[in-house]
Protein backbone atom coordinates (compact mmCIF):
# COMPACT_ATOMS: atom_id res chain seq x y z
CA UNK A 1 0.00 0.00 0.00
CA UNK A 2 2.77 2.42 0.94
CA UNK A 3 6.36 1.89 -0.04
CA UNK A 4 9.36 4.11 0.68
CA UNK A 5 12.51 3.21 -1.24
CA UNK A 6 15.91 4.81 -0.53
CA UNK A 7 14.24 7.99 0.65
CA UNK A 8 16.41 10.92 1.68
CA UNK A 9 15.27 14.31 2.92
CA UNK A 10 17.20 17.46 3.63
CA UNK A 11 16.02 20.96 4.43
CA UNK A 12 17.90 23.59 2.48
CA UNK A 13 21.61 22.88 2.17
CA UNK A 14 21.98 21.12 5.53
CA UNK A 15 22.66 17.44 6.18
CA UNK A 16 19.98 14.89 5.41
CA UNK A 17 17.52 14.52 8.26
CA UNK A 18 16.31 11.22 6.79
CA UNK A 19 18.70 8.82 5.06
CA UNK A 20 18.02 5.72 3.01
CA UNK A 21 14.55 5.12 4.43
CA UNK A 22 13.09 1.83 3.21
CA UNK A 23 9.84 0.35 4.44
CA UNK A 24 6.52 -0.97 3.28
CA UNK A 25 3.13 -0.69 4.99
CA UNK A 26 0.48 -3.28 4.17
CA UNK A 27 -3.16 -2.35 3.79
CA UNK A 28 -4.98 -2.47 7.14
CA UNK A 29 -1.77 -2.53 9.18
CA UNK A 30 -1.20 -0.64 12.44
CA UNK A 31 2.30 0.62 13.11
CA UNK A 32 3.99 2.78 15.66
CA UNK A 33 6.66 5.21 14.50
CA UNK A 34 9.06 5.87 17.31
CA UNK A 35 12.52 7.12 18.09
CA UNK A 36 14.24 9.78 20.18
CA UNK A 37 13.36 13.45 19.84
CA UNK A 38 14.91 14.96 16.73
CA UNK A 39 15.25 11.57 15.02
CA UNK A 40 13.02 12.74 12.15
CA UNK A 41 9.60 11.31 13.08
CA UNK A 42 7.72 14.45 12.13
CA UNK A 43 9.71 14.76 8.88
CA UNK A 44 8.87 11.15 7.98
CA UNK A 45 5.20 11.74 8.81
CA UNK A 46 5.31 14.86 6.65
CA UNK A 47 6.58 12.78 3.74
CA UNK A 48 3.83 10.25 4.36
CA UNK A 49 1.05 12.84 4.25
CA UNK A 50 2.70 14.39 1.16
CA UNK A 51 3.46 17.63 2.97
CA UNK A 52 6.94 17.55 1.44
CA UNK A 53 8.62 15.88 -1.46
CA UNK A 54 11.73 13.81 -0.70
CA UNK A 55 15.15 14.99 -1.80
CA UNK A 56 15.76 11.57 -3.31
CA UNK A 57 14.18 8.14 -3.51
CA UNK A 58 10.85 6.74 -4.56
CA UNK A 59 7.52 6.91 -2.71
CA UNK A 60 4.65 4.70 -3.82
CA UNK A 61 1.26 5.49 -2.27
CA UNK A 62 -1.77 3.32 -2.85
CA UNK A 63 0.03 1.64 -5.73
CA UNK A 64 1.05 4.88 -7.48
CA UNK A 65 4.46 6.50 -7.73
CA UNK A 66 4.06 10.06 -6.49
CA UNK A 67 7.00 11.34 -8.54
CA UNK A 68 5.67 12.95 -11.66
CA UNK A 69 2.14 13.32 -10.30
CA UNK A 70 0.39 16.60 -11.08
CA UNK A 71 -0.65 18.98 -8.28
CA UNK A 72 -4.27 17.97 -8.64
CA UNK A 73 -3.39 14.27 -8.52
CA UNK A 74 -1.37 14.83 -5.35
CA UNK A 75 -4.33 16.77 -3.93
CA UNK A 76 -6.62 13.82 -4.67
CA UNK A 77 -4.08 11.51 -3.04
CA UNK A 78 -4.02 13.70 0.09
CA UNK A 79 -7.79 13.32 0.36
CA UNK A 80 -7.19 9.61 1.02
CA UNK A 81 -4.95 10.42 3.98
CA UNK A 82 -6.20 11.54 7.38
CA UNK A 83 -3.80 13.33 9.69
CA UNK A 84 -4.04 13.95 13.42
CA UNK A 85 -1.50 16.66 14.16
CA UNK A 86 0.35 16.82 17.45
CA UNK A 87 -0.97 20.33 18.09
CA UNK A 88 -4.43 19.39 16.70
CA UNK A 89 -4.50 22.32 14.22
CA UNK A 90 -8.23 22.87 14.58
CA UNK A 91 -9.54 26.03 12.95
CA UNK A 92 -10.42 28.23 15.93
CA UNK A 93 -13.15 30.23 14.23
CA UNK A 94 -15.08 27.14 13.11
CA UNK A 95 -17.42 25.16 15.34
CA UNK A 96 -16.66 21.55 16.23
CA UNK A 97 -19.15 20.49 13.55
CA UNK A 98 -17.57 22.65 10.85
CA UNK A 99 -14.06 21.53 11.77
CA UNK A 100 -15.04 17.90 11.38
CA UNK A 101 -17.00 18.63 8.20
CA UNK A 102 -14.04 20.34 6.55
CA UNK A 103 -12.63 17.34 4.61
CA UNK A 104 -16.10 16.59 3.25
CA UNK A 105 -16.65 20.20 2.20
CA UNK A 106 -13.31 20.18 0.42
CA UNK A 107 -14.50 17.23 -1.64
CA UNK A 108 -17.84 19.00 -2.24
CA UNK A 109 -19.89 16.29 -0.55
CA UNK A 110 -23.65 17.10 -0.54
CA UNK A 111 -24.63 19.05 2.59
CA UNK A 112 -27.25 16.48 3.67
CA UNK A 113 -24.65 13.74 3.63
CA UNK A 114 -22.27 15.98 5.60
CA UNK A 115 -24.95 16.58 8.25
CA UNK A 116 -25.65 12.86 8.65
CA UNK A 117 -22.04 11.68 8.67
CA UNK A 118 -20.64 14.39 10.92
CA UNK A 119 -23.42 14.08 13.49
CA UNK A 120 -23.01 10.31 13.56
CA UNK A 121 -19.23 10.54 13.97
CA UNK A 122 -19.45 13.22 16.68
CA UNK A 123 -21.82 10.96 18.60
CA UNK A 124 -19.36 8.10 18.16
CA UNK A 125 -16.46 10.10 19.63
CA UNK A 126 -18.74 11.40 22.38
CA UNK A 127 -18.92 15.01 21.23
CA UNK A 128 -22.48 15.08 19.94
CA UNK A 129 -23.47 17.63 22.56
CA UNK A 130 -20.56 19.94 21.75
CA UNK A 131 -20.95 20.28 18.01
CA UNK A 132 -21.78 24.00 18.04
CA UNK A 133 -18.96 24.94 20.38
CA UNK A 134 -15.71 26.53 19.29
CA UNK A 135 -12.57 24.42 19.86
CA UNK A 136 -11.16 26.84 22.46
CA UNK A 137 -14.06 26.00 24.78
CA UNK A 138 -13.14 22.28 24.81
CA UNK A 139 -10.64 20.39 26.95
CA UNK A 140 -7.44 18.99 25.45
CA UNK A 141 -8.92 15.50 25.24
CA UNK A 142 -12.05 16.76 23.54
CA UNK A 143 -10.01 18.77 21.04
CA UNK A 144 -8.00 15.65 20.34
CA UNK A 145 -11.18 13.74 19.57
CA UNK A 146 -12.34 16.52 17.26
CA UNK A 147 -8.99 16.27 15.46
CA UNK A 148 -9.42 12.51 15.11
CA UNK A 149 -13.00 12.86 13.93
CA UNK A 150 -11.84 15.36 11.31
CA UNK A 151 -9.07 12.99 10.23
CA UNK A 152 -11.41 10.02 9.75
CA UNK A 153 -14.64 11.67 8.54
CA UNK A 154 -13.75 11.17 4.87
CA UNK A 155 -12.94 7.49 5.50
CA UNK A 156 -9.24 7.78 4.69
CA UNK A 157 -7.27 4.77 3.58
CA UNK A 158 -4.34 5.90 5.70
CA UNK A 159 -4.49 7.60 9.09
CA UNK A 160 -1.37 9.28 10.44
CA UNK A 161 -1.32 10.46 14.04
CA UNK A 162 1.62 12.50 15.31
CA UNK A 163 2.04 12.11 19.08
CA UNK A 164 -1.72 11.84 19.57
CA UNK A 165 -1.42 11.06 23.26
CA UNK A 166 1.29 13.61 23.93
CA UNK A 167 -0.99 16.13 25.62
CA UNK A 168 -3.32 13.65 27.26
CA UNK A 169 -3.30 11.83 30.56
CA UNK A 170 -2.86 8.05 30.44
CA UNK A 171 -6.56 7.17 30.79
CA UNK A 172 -7.64 9.40 27.91
CA UNK A 173 -4.59 8.25 25.93
CA UNK A 174 -5.66 4.64 26.23
CA UNK A 175 -9.23 5.51 25.23
CA UNK A 176 -7.85 7.31 22.23
CA UNK A 177 -5.76 4.29 21.24
CA UNK A 178 -8.83 2.09 21.57
CA UNK A 179 -10.60 4.45 19.19
CA UNK A 180 -7.76 4.14 16.69
CA UNK A 181 -7.83 0.34 16.99
CA UNK A 182 -11.54 0.34 16.20
CA UNK A 183 -10.81 2.36 13.07
CA UNK A 184 -8.02 -0.05 12.19
CA UNK A 185 -10.42 -2.97 12.51
CA UNK A 186 -12.65 -1.19 9.99
CA UNK A 187 -9.79 -1.36 7.50
CA UNK A 188 -7.94 1.92 7.92
CA UNK A 189 -4.14 1.67 7.80
CA UNK A 190 -2.75 3.52 10.81
CA UNK A 191 0.63 4.94 11.71
CA UNK A 192 1.02 6.51 15.14
CA UNK A 193 4.16 8.50 15.86
CA UNK A 194 4.92 8.33 19.56
CA UNK A 195 7.71 7.93 22.06
CA UNK A 196 5.36 6.61 24.72
CA UNK A 197 6.93 3.20 25.47
CA UNK A 198 4.15 2.15 27.79
CA UNK A 199 1.55 2.76 25.11
CA UNK A 200 3.53 0.83 22.50
CA UNK A 201 4.07 -2.06 24.87
CA UNK A 202 0.41 -2.15 25.80
CA UNK A 203 -0.86 -2.23 22.21
CA UNK A 204 1.86 -4.41 20.71
CA UNK A 205 1.91 -3.29 17.08
CA UNK A 206 5.00 -3.32 14.84
CA UNK A 207 7.35 -0.40 15.32
CA UNK A 208 9.18 1.73 12.82
CA UNK A 209 12.15 2.98 14.80
CA UNK A 210 13.91 6.11 13.62
CA UNK A 211 17.42 6.73 14.92
CA UNK A 212 19.65 9.47 13.57
CA UNK A 213 17.65 9.71 10.37
CA UNK A 214 17.64 5.97 9.64
CA UNK A 215 14.75 3.58 10.01
CA UNK A 216 14.61 0.09 11.46
CA UNK A 217 11.50 -2.04 11.37
CA UNK A 218 10.80 -4.11 14.46
CA UNK A 219 8.09 -6.75 14.55
CA UNK A 220 6.15 -7.34 17.80
CA UNK A 221 7.85 -10.64 18.62
CA UNK A 222 11.22 -8.82 18.42
CA UNK A 223 10.30 -6.08 20.86
CA UNK A 224 8.76 -8.63 23.24
CA UNK A 225 12.06 -10.50 23.21
CA UNK A 226 13.94 -7.21 23.65
CA UNK A 227 11.66 -6.32 26.51
CA UNK A 228 12.36 -9.64 28.20
CA UNK A 229 16.06 -9.13 27.64
CA UNK A 230 15.81 -5.62 29.10
CA UNK A 231 16.71 -3.66 25.97
CA UNK A 232 13.63 -1.44 26.44
Amino acid at each position, binding site marked *: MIRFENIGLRYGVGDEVLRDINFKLERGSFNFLTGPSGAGKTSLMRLM*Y*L*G*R*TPTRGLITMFGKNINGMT*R*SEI*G*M*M*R*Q*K*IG*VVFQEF*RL*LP*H*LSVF*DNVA*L*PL*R*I*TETPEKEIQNNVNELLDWVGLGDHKDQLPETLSGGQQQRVAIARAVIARPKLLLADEPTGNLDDTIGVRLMNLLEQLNRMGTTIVVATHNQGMMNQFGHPRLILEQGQLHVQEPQTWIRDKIEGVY
Partner: protein
Amino acid sequence: MAKSVQSFTQKAGGRYDLPLNRSGNGRFIILLITMMTFLAVLAISASFALSGVAAKWSTGLENKLTIEIPAGETDVSALKVEVKKKLDSIDNISKIDVMSDDAIAALVAPWLGADFALEEVPMPALIAVETKENTRAFIDKLQKDLSEINSAIIVDAHEEWLEDFLRMIGALKFGAMFVSLVIAATAIVAITGIIRARMSEHRPDVELLHLMGASDAYIAGQFQRYALRLGLLGGAFGLFAGALGLAIFSVGINAGDSDLFPSLRLSGLAIFVLFCLPFVSCALCSTTAKITVLRSLARMP
Protein backbone atom coordinates in the same frame (compact mmCIF):
# COMPACT_ATOMS: atom_id res chain seq x y z
CA MET B 1 -19.41 48.90 8.55
CA ALA B 2 -17.44 45.71 9.30
CA LYS B 3 -20.55 44.23 10.89
CA SER B 4 -22.67 45.16 7.92
CA VAL B 5 -20.11 43.58 5.56
CA GLN B 6 -20.10 40.40 7.64
CA SER B 7 -23.86 40.39 7.72
CA PHE B 8 -23.99 40.95 3.95
CA THR B 9 -21.62 38.08 3.23
CA GLN B 10 -23.45 35.74 5.60
CA LYS B 11 -26.84 36.62 4.15
CA ALA B 12 -25.44 35.97 0.70
CA GLY B 13 -24.81 32.40 1.74
CA GLY B 14 -21.05 32.81 1.98
CA ARG B 15 -19.26 30.19 4.08
CA TYR B 16 -15.61 30.63 4.72
CA ASP B 17 -13.27 27.92 5.98
CA LEU B 18 -10.81 30.73 6.59
CA PRO B 19 -11.88 33.66 8.80
CA LEU B 20 -11.56 36.15 5.97
CA ASN B 21 -14.81 37.94 6.75
CA ARG B 22 -13.83 38.59 10.36
CA SER B 23 -11.22 41.22 9.91
CA GLY B 24 -11.21 44.99 10.11
CA ASN B 25 -9.19 44.93 6.89
CA GLY B 26 -12.50 44.50 5.07
CA ARG B 27 -13.38 48.11 5.87
CA PHE B 28 -10.05 49.29 4.52
CA ILE B 29 -10.49 47.38 1.28
CA ILE B 30 -14.02 48.72 0.82
CA LEU B 31 -12.85 52.27 1.48
CA LEU B 32 -9.98 51.84 -0.97
CA ILE B 33 -12.21 50.46 -3.70
CA THR B 34 -14.81 53.15 -3.01
CA MET B 35 -12.21 55.86 -3.59
CA MET B 36 -10.82 54.12 -6.67
CA THR B 37 -14.30 53.74 -8.16
CA PHE B 38 -15.15 57.35 -7.31
CA LEU B 39 -12.06 58.53 -9.19
CA ALA B 40 -12.82 56.17 -12.07
CA VAL B 41 -16.39 57.57 -12.31
CA LEU B 42 -15.00 61.10 -12.57
CA ALA B 43 -12.31 60.13 -15.10
CA ILE B 44 -14.68 58.15 -17.32
CA SER B 45 -17.37 60.83 -17.13
CA ALA B 46 -14.76 63.44 -18.08
CA SER B 47 -13.78 61.30 -21.02
CA PHE B 48 -17.40 61.05 -22.20
CA ALA B 49 -17.96 64.78 -21.64
CA LEU B 50 -14.86 65.62 -23.70
CA SER B 51 -16.14 63.33 -26.45
CA GLY B 52 -19.34 65.39 -26.35
CA VAL B 53 -17.38 68.64 -26.66
CA ALA B 54 -15.39 67.28 -29.61
CA ALA B 55 -18.55 65.98 -31.30
CA LYS B 56 -20.35 69.30 -30.78
CA TRP B 57 -17.57 71.37 -32.34
CA SER B 58 -16.83 68.89 -35.12
CA THR B 59 -20.50 68.64 -36.09
CA GLY B 60 -21.01 72.40 -35.80
CA LEU B 61 -18.24 73.19 -38.26
CA GLU B 62 -18.57 70.20 -40.51
CA ASN B 63 -18.88 71.13 -44.23
CA LYS B 64 -18.68 74.84 -43.44
CA LEU B 65 -16.34 77.42 -44.88
CA THR B 66 -15.96 81.14 -44.39
CA ILE B 67 -14.74 83.26 -47.26
CA GLU B 68 -13.16 86.54 -46.25
CA ILE B 69 -12.63 89.47 -48.53
CA PRO B 70 -10.21 91.50 -46.44
CA ALA B 71 -10.92 95.13 -45.63
CA GLY B 72 -9.01 97.71 -47.57
CA GLU B 73 -9.57 96.13 -50.97
CA THR B 74 -10.58 98.65 -53.59
CA ASP B 75 -14.20 97.63 -53.91
CA VAL B 76 -15.30 95.06 -51.39
CA SER B 77 -18.94 95.23 -52.52
CA ALA B 78 -18.07 94.50 -56.13
CA LEU B 79 -15.80 91.65 -55.10
CA LYS B 80 -18.59 90.29 -52.91
CA VAL B 81 -20.91 90.10 -55.92
CA GLU B 82 -18.26 88.53 -58.11
CA VAL B 83 -17.37 85.91 -55.48
CA LYS B 84 -21.07 85.15 -54.92
CA LYS B 85 -21.48 84.60 -58.65
CA LYS B 86 -18.53 82.25 -58.72
CA LEU B 87 -19.84 80.32 -55.73
CA ASP B 88 -23.28 79.97 -57.30
CA SER B 89 -21.69 78.15 -60.19
CA ILE B 90 -20.14 75.44 -58.04
CA ASP B 91 -22.21 72.24 -57.60
CA ASN B 92 -20.60 71.16 -54.34
CA ILE B 93 -21.86 74.28 -52.56
CA SER B 94 -25.28 73.86 -51.03
CA LYS B 95 -25.78 77.18 -49.22
CA ILE B 96 -24.28 80.65 -49.49
CA ASP B 97 -24.87 83.32 -46.87
CA VAL B 98 -23.37 86.69 -47.61
CA MET B 99 -23.23 88.31 -44.22
CA SER B 100 -24.94 91.67 -44.03
CA ASP B 101 -23.24 94.74 -42.61
CA ASP B 102 -25.47 94.45 -39.54
CA ALA B 103 -24.38 90.85 -38.96
CA ILE B 104 -20.72 91.87 -39.25
CA ALA B 105 -21.34 94.78 -36.91
CA ALA B 106 -22.82 92.38 -34.39
CA LEU B 107 -19.71 90.20 -34.66
CA VAL B 108 -17.30 93.03 -33.93
CA ALA B 109 -19.54 94.75 -31.40
CA PRO B 110 -17.83 93.12 -28.37
CA TRP B 111 -14.56 94.83 -29.37
CA LEU B 112 -15.73 98.08 -30.98
CA GLY B 113 -18.97 98.78 -29.15
CA ALA B 114 -22.57 98.48 -30.34
CA ASP B 115 -23.05 102.03 -31.59
CA PHE B 116 -19.95 102.64 -33.68
CA ALA B 117 -20.29 103.88 -37.26
CA LEU B 118 -19.54 100.95 -39.56
CA GLU B 119 -18.70 103.15 -42.51
CA GLU B 120 -15.87 104.80 -40.56
CA VAL B 121 -13.96 101.61 -40.19
CA PRO B 122 -12.86 99.46 -43.12
CA MET B 123 -14.64 96.16 -42.61
CA PRO B 124 -14.00 92.87 -44.40
CA ALA B 125 -16.79 91.06 -46.22
CA LEU B 126 -17.65 87.59 -44.97
CA ILE B 127 -19.49 84.86 -46.85
CA ALA B 128 -20.54 81.72 -44.96
CA VAL B 129 -20.66 78.71 -47.22
CA GLU B 130 -22.02 75.22 -46.68
CA THR B 131 -20.68 72.48 -48.90
CA LYS B 132 -21.93 69.02 -49.67
CA GLU B 133 -18.47 67.60 -49.01
CA ASN B 134 -15.43 69.37 -47.63
CA THR B 135 -12.41 67.67 -49.14
CA ARG B 136 -8.94 69.12 -49.06
CA ALA B 137 -8.82 69.09 -52.86
CA PHE B 138 -12.09 71.04 -53.11
CA ILE B 139 -10.93 73.69 -50.65
CA ASP B 140 -7.61 74.08 -52.48
CA LYS B 141 -9.39 74.41 -55.83
CA LEU B 142 -11.86 76.96 -54.41
CA GLN B 143 -8.99 78.97 -52.94
CA LYS B 144 -7.27 78.89 -56.35
CA ASP B 145 -10.46 79.94 -58.20
CA LEU B 146 -11.17 82.82 -55.82
CA SER B 147 -7.54 83.95 -55.87
CA GLU B 148 -7.96 84.47 -59.61
CA ILE B 149 -10.67 87.03 -58.80
CA ASN B 150 -8.52 88.64 -56.11
CA SER B 151 -5.41 87.23 -54.53
CA ALA B 152 -6.31 88.64 -51.08
CA ILE B 153 -9.46 86.50 -50.72
CA ILE B 154 -9.10 83.90 -47.99
CA VAL B 155 -10.97 80.59 -47.76
CA ASP B 156 -11.10 79.60 -44.08
CA ALA B 157 -12.07 75.94 -43.49
CA HIS B 158 -11.64 76.40 -39.71
CA GLU B 159 -9.39 73.38 -39.85
CA GLU B 160 -6.33 74.92 -38.36
CA TRP B 161 -7.78 75.94 -35.03
CA LEU B 162 -10.32 73.08 -34.99
CA GLU B 163 -7.55 70.54 -35.41
CA ASP B 164 -5.63 72.12 -32.54
CA PHE B 165 -8.77 72.16 -30.46
CA LEU B 166 -9.63 68.54 -31.23
CA ARG B 167 -6.02 67.52 -30.60
CA MET B 168 -6.24 69.13 -27.18
CA ILE B 169 -9.57 67.40 -26.49
CA GLY B 170 -8.02 64.10 -27.66
CA ALA B 171 -5.09 64.60 -25.31
CA LEU B 172 -7.46 65.32 -22.43
CA LYS B 173 -9.51 62.21 -23.28
CA PHE B 174 -6.34 60.15 -23.44
CA GLY B 175 -5.34 61.65 -20.08
CA ALA B 176 -8.72 60.69 -18.59
CA MET B 177 -8.44 57.14 -19.92
CA PHE B 178 -4.84 56.93 -18.73
CA VAL B 179 -5.93 58.07 -15.26
CA SER B 180 -8.59 55.32 -15.32
CA LEU B 181 -5.93 52.76 -16.19
CA VAL B 182 -3.64 54.07 -13.45
CA ILE B 183 -6.54 53.79 -11.00
CA ALA B 184 -7.14 50.18 -12.08
CA ALA B 185 -3.42 49.38 -11.85
CA THR B 186 -3.23 50.97 -8.39
CA ALA B 187 -6.26 48.94 -7.31
CA ILE B 188 -4.63 45.75 -8.58
CA VAL B 189 -1.38 46.47 -6.73
CA ALA B 190 -3.25 47.36 -3.54
CA ILE B 191 -5.51 44.29 -3.67
CA THR B 192 -2.52 42.05 -4.42
CA GLY B 193 -0.76 43.41 -1.34
CA ILE B 194 -3.85 43.01 0.83
CA ILE B 195 -4.50 39.44 -0.34
CA ARG B 196 -0.84 38.52 0.23
CA ALA B 197 -1.12 39.94 3.74
CA ARG B 198 -4.28 37.89 4.35
CA MET B 199 -2.50 34.81 2.97
CA SER B 200 0.38 35.36 5.40
CA GLU B 201 -2.02 35.98 8.26
CA HIS B 202 -3.84 32.70 7.59
CA ARG B 203 -0.90 30.71 6.27
CA PRO B 204 -1.19 27.83 8.80
CA ASP B 205 -4.88 27.44 8.00
CA VAL B 206 -4.22 27.64 4.25
CA GLU B 207 -1.52 24.97 4.64
CA LEU B 208 -3.94 22.81 6.58
CA LEU B 209 -6.53 22.98 3.79
CA HIS B 210 -3.78 22.23 1.29
CA LEU B 211 -2.66 19.17 3.28
CA MET B 212 -6.24 17.96 3.52
CA GLY B 213 -6.30 17.80 -0.26
CA ALA B 214 -8.14 21.02 -1.01
CA SER B 215 -7.44 21.98 -4.59
CA ASP B 216 -5.74 25.28 -5.35
CA ALA B 217 -8.98 26.43 -6.96
CA TYR B 218 -10.92 25.64 -3.74
CA ILE B 219 -8.54 27.70 -1.58
CA ALA B 220 -8.30 30.50 -4.14
CA GLY B 221 -12.10 30.45 -4.35
CA GLN B 222 -12.33 31.45 -0.67
CA PHE B 223 -10.20 34.55 -1.24
CA GLN B 224 -11.88 35.20 -4.59
CA ARG B 225 -15.36 35.21 -3.09
CA TYR B 226 -14.18 37.46 -0.26
CA ALA B 227 -12.57 39.93 -2.69
CA LEU B 228 -15.56 39.80 -5.02
CA ARG B 229 -17.99 40.83 -2.31
CA LEU B 230 -15.78 43.61 -1.03
CA GLY B 231 -15.26 44.75 -4.62
CA LEU B 232 -19.01 44.86 -5.20
CA LEU B 233 -19.65 46.86 -2.03
CA GLY B 234 -16.75 49.25 -2.66
CA GLY B 235 -17.77 49.60 -6.31
CA ALA B 236 -21.39 50.39 -5.39
CA PHE B 237 -20.38 52.96 -2.76
CA GLY B 238 -17.87 54.48 -5.18
CA LEU B 239 -20.48 54.71 -7.94
CA PHE B 240 -22.92 56.40 -5.57
CA ALA B 241 -20.26 58.86 -4.39
CA GLY B 242 -19.20 59.49 -7.99
CA ALA B 243 -22.79 60.10 -9.11
CA LEU B 244 -23.22 62.55 -6.25
CA GLY B 245 -19.99 64.33 -7.20
CA LEU B 246 -21.05 64.52 -10.85
CA ALA B 247 -24.46 65.90 -9.90
CA ILE B 248 -22.83 68.69 -7.86
CA PHE B 249 -20.30 69.40 -10.64
CA SER B 250 -23.05 69.36 -13.26
CA VAL B 251 -25.13 71.92 -11.35
CA GLY B 252 -22.06 74.18 -11.17
CA ILE B 253 -21.12 73.90 -14.84
CA ASN B 254 -24.66 74.22 -16.19
CA ALA B 255 -25.28 77.34 -14.13
CA GLY B 256 -22.84 79.22 -16.43
CA ASP B 257 -24.80 78.37 -19.60
CA SER B 258 -21.52 77.91 -21.45
CA ASP B 259 -21.51 77.26 -25.18
CA LEU B 260 -17.99 75.90 -25.04
CA PHE B 261 -18.79 73.02 -22.67
CA PRO B 262 -21.80 70.81 -23.17
CA SER B 263 -24.06 70.04 -20.24
CA LEU B 264 -23.02 67.02 -18.16
CA ARG B 265 -26.09 65.10 -19.19
CA LEU B 266 -24.59 61.65 -19.81
CA SER B 267 -25.56 59.51 -22.77
CA GLY B 268 -27.12 56.07 -22.36
CA LEU B 269 -23.79 54.48 -23.20
CA ALA B 270 -21.99 56.56 -20.58
CA ILE B 271 -24.55 55.66 -17.91
CA PHE B 272 -24.29 51.99 -18.87
CA VAL B 273 -20.48 52.13 -18.61
CA LEU B 274 -20.66 53.83 -15.21
CA PHE B 275 -23.18 51.28 -13.92
CA CYS B 276 -20.80 48.54 -15.03
CA LEU B 277 -18.07 49.94 -12.77
CA PRO B 278 -19.08 47.99 -9.61
CA PHE B 279 -19.03 44.81 -11.66
CA VAL B 280 -15.70 45.75 -13.19
CA SER B 281 -14.48 46.39 -9.66
CA CYS B 282 -15.76 42.93 -8.63
CA ALA B 283 -14.06 41.25 -11.56
CA LEU B 284 -10.83 43.14 -10.92
CA CYS B 285 -10.78 42.27 -7.20
CA SER B 286 -11.81 38.67 -7.76
CA THR B 287 -9.35 37.97 -10.56
CA THR B 288 -6.50 39.71 -8.75
CA ALA B 289 -7.23 37.69 -5.60
CA LYS B 290 -7.38 34.45 -7.56
CA ILE B 291 -4.10 35.03 -9.38
CA THR B 292 -2.34 36.18 -6.20
CA VAL B 293 -3.46 33.14 -4.21
CA LEU B 294 -2.73 30.66 -7.00
CA ARG B 295 0.78 32.07 -7.36
CA SER B 296 1.35 31.78 -3.61
CA LEU B 297 -0.06 28.25 -3.51
CA ALA B 298 2.19 27.20 -6.38
CA ARG B 299 5.11 27.60 -3.99
CA MET B 300 3.63 24.97 -1.64
CA PRO B 301 4.71 21.37 -2.34
